[in-house]
């Protein structure tokens, strides 16, 4: 089963600078100026610019291959460690929020 997630990132720099943050998660994620991509089996991730410095991200985790809570938690820890403001929401099959991760900053 795939578990959807979504959220926002607020960046004072280019999306491409997230490469190091994504590297910290241990998943095969990449970032360019315009978008983020995943080549990690079981993890889909995409982004779109909402306004200046604010990006909406969405994706899904296949629970056959990964633990959705672990994936979101690792993403949140890596973003937090880099001082990025964010909110990530893991949703259940009906679209209801199961858990929310937010930056401490």
């Amino acid at each position, binding site marked *: *089963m795939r578990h959807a997630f979504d959220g926002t990132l607020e960046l004072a720099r280019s999306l491409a600078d997230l490469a190091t943050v994504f*590297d*910290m*998660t*241990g*998943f095969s994620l990449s970032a360019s100026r315009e978008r983020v991509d995943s080549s*990690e*089996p*079981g993890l889909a991730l995409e982004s779109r610019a909402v306004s200046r410095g604010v990006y909406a991200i969405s994706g899904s985790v296949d*629970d*056959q*291959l*990964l*633990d959705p809570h*672990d*994936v979101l*938690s*690792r993403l949140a*820890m*890596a973003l937090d*460690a880099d001082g990025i403001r964010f909110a990530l929401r893991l949703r259940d099959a009906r679209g209801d929020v199961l858990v929310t991760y937010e930056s401490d900053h």
Partner: protein
Amino acid sequence: MNPTIELPIEATSALKKLRPQWQIDAVSDVELLPGGYTNDNYSLTYQRAEYVLRIVRSPPVPIDRAFEKRLLSGPIALLTAPVVAFLLPEGHMLTRKVAGPLLIDARPDRTRIAQFLARLHLRIPMLGRRYDLVQTIGRDLRAATQLGETAPPWFAKELESLTRAALQIRPCHNDLNPWNVIVSAADPGRWCTLDWEFAGDNDPLFDLICVAEGLGWSIDETDELIDLYLEQIESSRAPTTPQRRTIRKAFFLREYAWALAQLAAGNRRAEIEAQLQRAGDALKALNG
């Protein structure tokens, strides 16, 4: 590359509990990974994703697996491989496989290893658990004795002289041999560290000696690593030669006692016999 094997029955049974939603027939490319003295580690593939399955053998001294699980999913998650599932109380675990050579094979230079150690120690948060060397050695010795293996008299004398091994305390790994580190990135700060079951507050020099001894470095090379590390971590600490040697002695005492307990419990692998011999020889050599 290791030969492909069929997943043993015990491992298959654990995997079914860890991932009930998997079609076990679809698991492929199973390999037994070398280096596990007390656990069996298998790499395997499922739906194009690579994993490592850890099957825990019952140790002579119990390990707090619930603590380990909390650690892996929380404070040190980004320092280790992504955990997919962890089974309590057994401690069997499934993680994603992290690409890269082991530290024992990669053999980066001393400066990079010092950078890795400094970054690792700075990033491990307070763990709320002490790893006391004297108590740990004592526990292993008691377990060995209960199982019929008694340490020789010279060992007890050496242990008695180890009154206070740890001089400065901070969160440490405590089993940081070069088989437990994957050189997974160009930046040593992002190398992946495995096997956190002994993590706890200890003297950080103990981790340095684990790495240096695992790499077969001389005392001079180990001292150079300590100096580089203290520079990297910007510590004003200046351990004296006797203080450095005390931690080194504690390392060999731990290695000896651990091997003795494992052998007493019936884990008679040649590598563990060799560890007992090596640690015993090193302890005798320390006294000239």
